[in-house]
């Protein structure tokens, strides 16, 4: 398994270089360093000297991919792409264009993002699975049909509607929770209860339908029939046999998400005033802050790759038939 992990990590390097290359190309296709300088300087009258000074102090005076003024290996290494990419691989994200340390900001914003994403994910997972099992228990009944109709309805409505409706109902009309905001420490829960509840509810439709289909596929298999033939109750059948064997396809979709929970949710964080990472990238794109954009894209790609590796490892953990060293 160790060899497998090492191999996967080595494969990740060209993927990350590719992601980085595409990020550089796309960003600079839309924003030239001069545009970035103008946006950052925020002066009403920007002179060429001011632009040049800004580019020099931020390292954007170097060519993007090929340095024709250098010779030998320096033609490639003395470029913005190589210099910045090397730092990224060392996990040195550098400074944002406003002078703030990106690593410091990411560390600070990561926790509020997790505070909202992790409970939403865990409660959502448990709720979706529990409801899916309940529906499978009563499959073919009126409850099954009604739940599927409701699930499709939940899926069809925009998440933004749930957020605004939730804020209006629970904060504005019923006055139960603050409409938005954030506090660290124990006070945090007052601010998280509504976004988490909305997050869980908004994910119910898709989640329940997906898990239901997984469980329905399992419930007709021979081992279930055998267990039933032995006289097991339906509940024991569902929780003791069906759930454990249905975990494998669930893991495929779930484990890969776990590392990306750090990245936060843009809309949820914006509307609830959660100071997380969700809006960090979007704000940076709007501000033409390439330092943050490249760091967040790189981090996103890295976390996704980690998620995929974790998924593979979880297969081996939950299914003894899967072995990487064979």
């Amino acid at each position: 398994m160790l060899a497998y992990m090492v191999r996967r990590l080595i494969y990740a390097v060209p993927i990350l270089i590719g992601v980085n290359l595409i990020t550089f190309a796309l960003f600079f296709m839309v924003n030239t360093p001069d545009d970035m300088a103008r946006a950052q300087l925020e002066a009403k009258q920007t002179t060429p000297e001011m632009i040049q000074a800004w580019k020099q102090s931020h390292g954007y005076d170097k060519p993007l991919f090929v340095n024709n003024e250098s010779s030998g290996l320096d033609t490639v290494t003395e470029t913005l792409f190589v210099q910045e990419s090397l730092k990224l691989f060392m996990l040195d994200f550098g400074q944002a264009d406003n002078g703030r340390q990106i690593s410091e900001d990411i560390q600070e914003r990561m926790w509020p993002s997790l505070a909202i994403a992790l409970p939403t994910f865990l409660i959502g997972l448990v709720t979706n699975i529990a409801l899916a099992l309940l529906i499978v228990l009563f499959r073919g009944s009126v409850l099954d049909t009604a739940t599927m109709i409701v699930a499709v309805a939940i899926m069809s409505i925009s998440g933004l509607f749930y957020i605004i409706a939730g804020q209006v109902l629970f904060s504005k009309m019923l006055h139960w929770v603050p409409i938005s905001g954030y506090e660290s420490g124990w006070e945090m829960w007052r601010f998280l209860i509504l976004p988490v509840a909305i997050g869980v509810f908004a994910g119910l439709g898709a989640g329940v339908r997906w898990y239901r289909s997984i469980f329905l596929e399992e419930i007709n298999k021979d081992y279930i029939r055998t267990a039933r033939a032995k006289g097991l109750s339906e509940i024991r059948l569902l929780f003791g046999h069906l759930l454990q064997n249905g975990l494998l396809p669930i893991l495929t979709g779930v484990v890969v998400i776990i590392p990306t929970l750090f990245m936060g949710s843009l809309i949820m964080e914006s509307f609830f005033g959660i100071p997380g990472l969700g809006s960090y990238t979007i704000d940076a794109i709007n501000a033409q802050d390439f330092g943050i954009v490249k760091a967040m894209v790189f981090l996103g790609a890295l976390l996704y790759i980690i998620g995929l590796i974790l998924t593979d490892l979880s297969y081996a953990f939950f299914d003894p038939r899967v072995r990487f060293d064979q």
Partner: protein
Amino acid sequence: MLSRPGRLQTFSVKGVFWLLLALTLLTLTGCSEDGVWNRPYSDEQARTNTLFSNFATPPKHLDPVRSYSANEWAIISQVYEPPLQYHYFKRPYTLEPLTLTQMPQQRFLDAQGREREATSEDVAMTEYHFHLRDDIRYHPHAAFARDAQGRFLYHALSEQQLDRIKRPADLPESGTRRLKAQDYTLAIKRMAITANHSPILGTMRELIVGLADYSDRVSKKPLTIKQLRESSVKGVEVHSDTHFSIRIHGRYPQFLYWLSMNFFAPIPWEALAFYRQPGLVKKNLSLDTYPVGTGAYQLLDNNPNRQMRLVRNPHYQHGTYPTEGLPDEADPDLLADGGKPLPLIDEVVYLLEKESVPLWNKFLQGYYDASGVSSDSFDQAISVSSQGDLSLTSEMQQKGIQFLSAVEPTVFYLGFNMDDPVVGGYDKTARKLRQAISIAVDMEEYISIFLNGRGVAAQGPIPPGIYGYERNRDHFNDVIYQWSDHGPVRRPLDEARQLLAEAGYPDGKTPEGEPLTLYYDTPATGPDAKSQLNWYRKQLAKLGIELVIRATDYNRFQEKVRGAKVQLFSWGWNADYPDPENFLFLLSGDQAVINSNGSGVNASNYDRPQFNQWFQQVKRMPNGPERQALIRKMVKLVQEDAPWVWGLHPKSVSLFHDWYRNVWANPMANNTLKYHRLEAAKRVEKQQAWNQPVVWPLWVLALLIMASVYPLVSAYRRRQRQTLVGNTAQNAVQNRAADESKAAPSTSSRKSGEGPSC
């Protein structure tokens, strides 16, 4: 694969009940003492003399050498004190000393530095002398902290000390010192260093004697703080700890306005030495995040990702509430606090609020003391009369909400590129084409449709409230308007059509009989902009002109404007200072983008020698009848030439609760927080009354859940019993199905979606 059966979990109505009860209790225990659950801050904070405000975009730079955005100045103007400030009430906008004992004294000098009369033709320089008050001290800061031997405690922080702090105030000791003239000159020297990216360096290099040479010298390699302190700018001189002077080229009365801006705020060298430590830079602690000033407040917490907190400067004792200058039409209660020491509020908390919906609802709940009005909430808050007057709706009035509206010193316009072969040029035909379009584009309609009446149609480049603005029977834009009993009324469309025909485009057709096609460049590309762009198209269609929209991203749009590759475009300008020069220079020839390699502000490339000559005169004149007459001539000239469709001056609308006092609109002043006052007890009372939780739905919800659990459990038990009864028959069927499946393995024993054997 068959796995081991897990522990059996059965439904329990009791369990669900206790769970719900526990959740309810948990909710109740988290509530405040006064029974309010949804307050976004603590009860204690609500009861204190703390103002709650918000920010949508975190400020990028708080270093006064660099900062230029409104959201940045909203913070640093409370902390820093340049030499001058605008009087809170007086109109027209009036400068007054802030840290000075009197207004700066001027001396006029010839090229050899000899003093001359103000009116002398030989005047080559103006020298301003500043005399500082001697009772002004910086707010407490770790940069000033010294030990018993007088050595600085924190100018060389250890790793351990760094590990323990998240902000400068976390360091146990702090200090202060008196404001000195050297602090002001240090700020000017910092401005000259190109690596500090001061947005006004280009302007000041031309203005302050010796600054260009100094800038070139000090920008080559980084200076130590000692070198920076010891270096000097030729035109900037320190005479004593309380007296310094600045010498500028020529006569430029507007220079005093620059001295009310934060670029000229004092910088203590101790702060530079303190923040230069790499360990602090790594922690995002710098002059860009934690300013050090002499103003009424200090920035104690700055988390741009969450909240910022200004706290009263305990050493501030040189400001008092104004006792005069209130316009006659204003509420006289605004002078009730006259003479009281400032600031009147102890603390200001800015909370991150990115979306307008929660912001507006929190304001209505009483959790924010003031709010703007977004287009989403406009109809709920403001009613517009048939005359276009704004007032509060009855819902707002019942809540005791107050309302303040003011025309901003801003102009938005639709520009013609005067370098364009079709719409540009100064001959009669091109001028008539522009005048016809100017009549057709109905800005009053635009203001009504897209701004809910929050704006005033422009008559020329100068906004209301700025010296030189006129709108009366004798002085209005008679090219576009005609005077009526209700003021200027847009000329009829027939006159526009007549002008268009005289321009060589009868019914909007070219001499070849084709429809005249014009191109409008805009960075507005979102769905919201579509209706506005369609509106522009319709305005020109009234004359038979076809308008082609060329929407692009902001960078490309700017590039096109800088390269004069546009025909029509929208642009705007917000006043730096309340002087007509700051607007008339938008049409000055030397500022035309084609004459300045793209760095000028005259995007329409208007370049009339007569106008340019008058502008040079107006620029140097003090306000008075002579200047007014010249401004009138300049405005008349551009009204005739019509290089812009004179757009609009927006109106700001702000709402505030009745416990928030002394609020007055002063768009030029940014340091006005110190004048505001709060009645915290009244605020808490209203918050309690407006936010009592509605509890009954919790119990209904609990009952509903319990009621739904019982039938499910019953149904399940019934099914289990049925399974036992029907098992024998079912087994027989299944055995037969299994035999059949041996012959045809692809047929499944049961389709998915069917229930358990019942």
